[in-house]
């Protein structure tokens, strides 16, 4: 049995710790995955579930691109198109880019901070299962009528009058469950990171990934209640005669928009900050240099989160609002560019004068920096509200947020998969396939979305199921559609790589990358209790200290030397 106890070291602040009195045999078999409260198994469940949803959302994306590949296409009916477009957005946001970080956070945070599990293991399991059920209910609506009011579900379109089907209810249910799951997960991360760090790991030695997840959690706690409340009001409006959003009964459409975007913009940072944080872990490992400006990066993360909660109405620049309000949200949006720019410069400075090893995780991280930068720059256009009046609700915006969401989050999902797969499975993924996948994804992505900026400037609105040949948008759409299929091929290579490497990958050992953080101290995959002993943390990069120590006591070289071959498949 594990008991919560405080060590009795006289001088140290007592650190809550889950002590294992007996080593438990690892539970095996498929039932262990259902009954587990182990953070590593739950982490893997999260990641695997998110990858399934990512694949479904990707198929929806391909259907959208196939429909738009030709003018006046009849592949999808208007009804089907709107349903698939709604499911794509809802899936990618609520079932992929947010929960997958909960997955990586679950797996990695206890390992990185030297804890035996999350603070609340059972709550953790519950978080996962309600997330899964939320997703299942949303997808079950495919057997009836899926929601079709867009992932933003603007009222009155999402009201009973204009969207009568139960698909909208499934959407609300999924929002409630995934939102609750995120909230509980966030509380768990906050409690774990605040209280369960290894001895010696002060805030100045907390890995940047943990900083990212901590701020992700605080943002979730701030933002999600707004959406939960709005979804509840919509539920009441639709089923019990509430009039929160009905303009004919004194309700307001603007109310929904404000509540939604008060959640919706922080949501962008909820899914992109963990990606940034992972880049701040991976880039130093493969540049073989310490992170440049640790405090600045941690501080910039907090600054982005704070400002990110003050910019929501820049999604509403075309609604009737006074110039003062518009100007406020323009300026607050500008301000976010500063801490974001700081991060980008810090990453480049980390690469500068390093010895960069071109591993797949490094490639995806560098791809993220280069791609997200473009999304950041187009964000400046959109922040200027008069310019936004031209660009809002067009394919320019579609391109912009895919540069941030795919560029910022999805690239880092792939980087994380390649980087931590050896830890999770004990085996390496194929670097050759990894690189093929990276180049396909990078080229496919830019082929798909770069041209969409021009489509927007030429007047193509978002969310239209067809366009006329006379509009002149045919060629650009064809290019975009081709790109989408190249991108999909790249994703499939990685999925194939995962499946094959699980059985046939080269055995990784505890620390195949010669990395910096504590999760590489324990075997791959780690035992149920994570660590036999937790070392005292002396710096931001405990593994470097440990390798140095081993080197001194054994004389066997442990540190990385540039150009020397690493264990690689």
């Amino acid at each position, binding site marked *: 049995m594990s008991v919560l106890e405080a060590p009795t070291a006289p001088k140290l602040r007592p650190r809550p710790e889950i002590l294992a009195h007996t080593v438990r045999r690892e539970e095996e078999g498929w039932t262990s995955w259902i009954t587990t409260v182990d953070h590593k198994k739950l982490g893997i469940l999260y990641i695997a579930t998110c990858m399934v949803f990512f694949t479904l959302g990707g198929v929806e994306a391909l259907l959208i691109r196939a429909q738009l590949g030709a003018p006046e296409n009849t592949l999808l009916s208007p009804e089907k198109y*709107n349903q698939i477009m709604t499911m794509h957005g809802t899936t990618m946001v609520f079932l992929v880019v947010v929960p997958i970080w909960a997955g990586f956070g679950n797996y990695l945070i206890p390992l990185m901070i030297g804890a035996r599990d999350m603070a609340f293991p059972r709550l953790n399991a519950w978080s996962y299962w309600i997330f899964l059920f939320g997703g299942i209910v949303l997808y079950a609506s495919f057997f009836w009528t899926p929601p079709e*009011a*867009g992932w933003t579900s603007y009222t009155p*379109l999402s009201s009973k009058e*204009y969207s009568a089907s139960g698909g909208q209810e499934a959407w609300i249910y999924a929002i409630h469950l995934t939102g609750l799951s995120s909230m509980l997960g966030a509380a768990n991360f906050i409690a774990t990171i605040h209280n369960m760090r290894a001895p010696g790991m002060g805030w100045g030695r907390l890995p940047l990934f943990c900083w990212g997840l901590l701020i992700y959690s605080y943002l979730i706690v701030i933002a999600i209640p707004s959406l939960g409340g709005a979804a509840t009001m919509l539920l009441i409006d639709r089923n019990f005669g509430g009039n929160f959003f009905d*303009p*004919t009964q004194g309700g*307001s*459409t*603007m109310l929904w928009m404000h509540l939604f975007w008060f959640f919706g913009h922080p949501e962008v940072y909820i899914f992109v900050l963990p990606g940034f944080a992972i880049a701040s872990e991976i880039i130093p490992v493969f540049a*073989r*240099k310490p992170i*440049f*400006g*640790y405090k*600045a990066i941690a501080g910039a993360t907090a600054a982005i989160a704070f400002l990110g909660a003050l910019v929501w109405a820049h999604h509403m620049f*075309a*609604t*009737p609002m006074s*110039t003062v309000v518009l*100007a406020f949200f323009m300026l607050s949006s*500008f301000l976010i*560019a*500063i801490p974001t720019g*700081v991060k980008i*410069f810090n990453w480049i*400075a980390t*690469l*500068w*004068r*390093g*010895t*960069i*090893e071109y591993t797949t995780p490094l490639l995806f991280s*560098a791809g993220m920096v280069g791609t997200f*930068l*473009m999304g950041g720059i*187009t964000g*400046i256009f959109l922040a*200027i509200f*008069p*310019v936004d*009046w*031209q*660009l*809002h*609700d067009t394919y320019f915006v579609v391109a912009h947020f895919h540069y941030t969401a795919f560029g910022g989050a999805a690239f880092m999902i792939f980087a994380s998969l390649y980087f931590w797969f050896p830890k999770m499975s004990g085996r390496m993924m194929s670097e050759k396939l990894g690189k093929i996948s990276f180049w396909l994804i990078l080229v496919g992505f830019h082929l798909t979305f770069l041209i969409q900026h*021009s489509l927007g*400037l*030429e*007047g193509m*609105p*978002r*969310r*239209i*199921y*067809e*366009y006329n040949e006379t509009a002149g948008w045919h060629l650009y759409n064809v290019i975009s559609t081709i790109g989408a299929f190249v991108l999909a091929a790249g994703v499939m290579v990685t999925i194939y790589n995962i499946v094959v490497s699980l059985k046939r990958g080269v055995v990784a050992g505890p620390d195949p990358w010669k990395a910096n953080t504590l999760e590489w101290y324990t075997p791959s995959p780690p035992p149920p209790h994570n660590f036999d002993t937790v070392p005292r943390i002396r710096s931001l990069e405990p593994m470097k200290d440990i390798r140095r120590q081993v080197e001194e006591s054994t004389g066997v070289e442990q540190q990385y030397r*540039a*150009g020397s071959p690493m264990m690689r498949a």
Partner: protein
Amino acid sequence: MIIDRLTAPVTDCARSSSPLRLIAVAAPAALFGALLAAQTATAGVLSPQAESPNAKDIKFLYDMVAIVGLIIFVVVEGLLFYALWKYRAKKGAVAAQIHGNTRLEIGWTVAAALILVVITIVTFIKMPAIINPAPSDIDANGNPVAGSLEFASTDQPDPPAESAELNIKVDGQQYVWRYQYPGPKVVFSYEEMVVPVGMTVTLDISSDDVAHSFWIPALGGKMDAIPGYINKLWFKTTRPATYVGQCAELCGRNHANMYSRVRAVPFDEYQKWYDQQAADIEQSNREAPKQRQAIEKAQGEQSIQGGGSAGGASDDQ
């Protein structure tokens, strides 16, 4: 420059900063030149379309950010690619164990802030001309207004009394736009808005059902049509032409088919069209439902689809 300070301590890196400096200077200059040269050719592909004064000012702001953005893009991506290429792992190379550089970090933070300050200032200078309707070039009778200026600016007095504005009520309905004209007669139209060239047109945009967004790209920005709210937009045409656009806010299944069109015609022609439209509507109101249906069909043959069929000649107020 930033690069210099980063590389200064190491001699072999100092050499490498000179091509970088060249890139940092030459690339933006070349881009700036290319952008100016291709200004007209790029409209719609690299930059918004612009025919109305407000649209031209928006395009100006867009182009300014595009130039600044391209410079940032080239410099930052250049640094990224340079670092990735130059510092790739080589046998025997040792990574410099640098933890940070406070002066450098403050430097780029301030630089980023300064760029934004410049963009902010220019935006605020241009803003009034984009938001406030420019004075018409013609008066209510279609005669040119004496001394009418091509460009409105903030310090300009209110438009001369004789210059006129045409205020049209724009009403979004699934899936058609309805335009209600001012004046002594009852005049409205669907999908196509007819306006006199040179007259400032102000729009009061609202919706009958769900949220829509009215947008004619060449004539300026878009404004959402939200039930229960009135949103303002304006434009002024300078030549006889037809400008097209379509609903920009998801409004249901046929969102893609909710087109809008502005036909700018000389004032006389507008007057004729106005009278004819008024007569047609009056006649249709008087005559039998059969003929009412005919005009309804003629009115919105391309536009009225599905849910829009309720809108016809009889529903005016």
